[in-house]
């Protein structure tokens, strides 16, 4: 009997499942006409879809009476904003374009490095168009309705600034991520300052889409720190702190936003000491949105805090960090990274929910689109159909693009995969 020498096992190459590329005929058979029931469904749904698309297309291109949008475009975008101060809004747009460009550039740089090191798969072709398609469509629609050369030139200039800033951002050394954040925050502040400051226009005279964006961005920015504090309080080891935070969060989450907005509109003036001037309705609405949103942000951040493994905290204690430093240096950075996609989701919700301020009498996008139909030229013609479709389209572009981005972020950060 011979003993064979010990052999290294020959590595068997692992076979994935076979990738089947269906030909077009085979694809149609598999996806549309597999069984008689499938065939019936296909016929039924192609009829329905064809009818819907035909009606929608006919409405958009033939029967829609878009003159009301054409003449009220500025109203829908800024409403009461003084027309001779509009250059401020354009300045803000330039600043924002620059900021976003730099951010996108440095993100692209980081991603290219990751691809080069083989950490992530390269982007699919045509992704950029799918990402920015709805947004470009919105810009095209706005330019069509603006129909003026100056608007076209200014938009082109904004796009040029964004592109230039993207290339500049690509040159930023990748280990300077803190700079990118600082530029982003500075850009937002500068954009607000360009409209508000230097003898500018207070937000009690803002309206339309500008007010919508202001309420959403301002609301989330102020809610975020409050929400983080509430979440930390909810997980605190002090029972008294916990009770207060849980009480606040659950109370707010149990009532509809409109009741909180009513509170802001009707009661906020009563809360302040006698003799104080009641703040403008815009400010009161913003306070109500912050009160409401911070409870939801707190729940999101709590989820992030819970996702940090217990061992991280124990390790921090073991190396002698105090509880405060453990939270600030170990727990929060990991928790906040995990909640970015959910925070984008909350921002989308807030962006849509700002439409509720129309009920308490503010003229943001939805409010404007329902009052322009009572202008003498358009009264009683049922044009609310057209204005609502336009407003819904603007909301749709914003929240659809953002939700796609948050799904991408979720995949990239690998949330839920660890």
């Amino acid at each position, binding site marked *: 009997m011979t003993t064979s020498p010990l052999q290294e096992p020959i590595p068997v190459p692992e076979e994935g499942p076979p990738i089947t590329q269906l030909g077009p005929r085979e694809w149609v058979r*598999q*996806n*549309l006409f*597999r069984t008689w029931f*499938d065939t019936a*469904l*296909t016929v039924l*749904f*192609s009829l*329905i*879809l064809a009818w819907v698309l035909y009606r929608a297309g006919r409405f958009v291109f033939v029967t829609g009476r878009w003159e009301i949008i054409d003449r009220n475009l500025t109203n829908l975008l800024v409403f009461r904003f003084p027309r001779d101060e509009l250059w401020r809004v354009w300045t803000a747009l330039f600043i924002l374009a620059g900021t976003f460009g730099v951010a996108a550039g440095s993100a692209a740089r980081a991603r290219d490095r990751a691809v080069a090191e083989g950490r992530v798969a390269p982007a699919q072709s045509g992704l950029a168009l799918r990402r920015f398609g709805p947004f470009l469509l919105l810009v095209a629609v706005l330019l069509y309705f603006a129909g003026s050369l100056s608007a076209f030139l200014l938009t082109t200039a904004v796009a040029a600034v964004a592109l230039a800033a993207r290339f500049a951002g690509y040159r930023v050394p990748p280990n300077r991520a803190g700079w990118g954040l600082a530029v982003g925050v500075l850009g937002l502040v500068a954009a607000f300052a360009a409209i508000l400051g230097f003898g500018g226009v207070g937000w009690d005279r803002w309206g339309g889409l500008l007010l919508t964006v202001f309420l959403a961005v301002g609301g989330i920015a102020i809610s975020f720190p409050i929400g983080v504090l509430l979440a930390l309080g909810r997980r605190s080891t*002090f*029972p*008294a*702190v916990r009770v*207060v935070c849980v009480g606040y969060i659950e*109370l707010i*989450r*149990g*009532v*509809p*936003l*409109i*009741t909180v907005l*009513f*509170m802001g509109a*009707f*009661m906020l*003036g*009563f*809360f*302040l*000491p*006698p003799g104080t001037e009641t703040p403008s309705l815009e400010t009161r609405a913003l306070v109500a949105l912050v009160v409401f949103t911070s409870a939801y942000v707190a729940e999101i951040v709590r989820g992030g805090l819970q996702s940090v493994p217990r061992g991280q905290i124990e390790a921090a204690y073991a190396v002698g960090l105090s509880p405060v430093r453990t939270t600030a240096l170990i727990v929060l950075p990991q928790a906040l990274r995990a909640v970015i996609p959910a925070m984008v989701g909350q921002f*989308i919700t807030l962006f*849509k*929910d700002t*439409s*509720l301020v*129309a*009920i308490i009498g503010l003229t943001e996008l*939805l409010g404007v689109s*329902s009052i322009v139909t009572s202008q003498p030229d358009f009264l009683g013609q*049922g044009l*609310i*159909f057209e204005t*609502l*479709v336009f*407003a*819904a389209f603007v*909301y*749709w572009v914003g*929240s*659809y693009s953002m*939700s796609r981005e948050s799904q991408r972020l979720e995949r990239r950060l690998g949330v839920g995969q660890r």
Partner: protein
Amino acid sequence: MSRPAPWRDVRVLRIAFQAAFLVAVGAFVLWIVDNTVGNLERRGIGTSFDFLDQPAGFRIPGSDFRTSQSIGDAILVGVETTIKVSALGIVLAFLLGVVVGVARLSPNWLVRRAAALYVESLRNVPVLAIIFFWYLAVILRLPTVEVAGLFVFSNRAFAVPNLTLEDGIGLFAVATAVALVAAAVAWRWRTRRFDATGEPHHRVLWGAGVLAAVLTVGFFVAGRPLGIDTPERLRFGFAGGLEMSPEFAGLLIALVLYTASHIAEVVRGSILAVQRGQGEAADALGLSPFQRLRFVVLPQAFRIMIPPLANHFLNLVKNSSLGVAIALPEVTRVVRIAISQRAPAPQSIVILMGIYLLFSLSIALVTNLVNRRLQLKGRG
């Protein structure tokens, strides 16, 4: 063992910190309450809840509420409308949401795309825009009276055929009970038979057949106690049938369509969350696609679904408060009218919030009960 000095003792410090925190929060709340009470009294509004007993002085369209009844009664009428629209909305949104969610995973490409189109277009638009759209742009632009067969769609009211009860209904109720028992017996018998011999049970067919047979016999024996009341055209408007105000119909349609688009995503996610092996095992056993969904995938998906589903039901109840924007007299609208009729705003809003909190708590309670029953009995 000696204890450290009190200002370095962690136990003392913890209590001191919490006391300081409570004092700070309490002081802030007291400051607000004090300001509010002061402001209210200076304007002569007062801080009591007596206003609830005072005559309302306004009417509520679509109900027999009289102006002499109290504001408290008016709020109760509003609560009733809120419950009606929420209950109907939850049922309809759930049904539509499950259908669309399953359709998003259909093997048929066209069905999948159509469902995705529906979900993505409605989910990303504010619910208020959808409500405005249905109410202002669709329903109010319908013709004044349009009798389309059995249904009425008009800008004054919606109506669907309604059942009417006539003489002999008591006998028929007994017959219904008998029919239900008979159907259940038939079901059990077929199930036993199937367990014993393995021949096809057809218990749905048997149960439904027995039910229908007994009900038909009972219907004629009792002398046709049920009638159908269809809405009929009159010179002005119409009469009969089960009527809905256009505001109610608008809010209901908008809430159902919007919430269903969210529920569809929950359903899709839960079905995808069921382990793939489960579906493959069902295929390997030779179950039909329907059986696979009905007996293997959906029961497991349902368990995952419950918490987010309850959340969307709650959202629907909360979103029904947007009826205030289209003048549907649900509870928010009633309180809003009361405030404009000189009811004190702070107290009214506190009551309104309390009512919604009660709704939220009861839905949370039911969810927890259902959740506990359906939870897998694990080792904890």
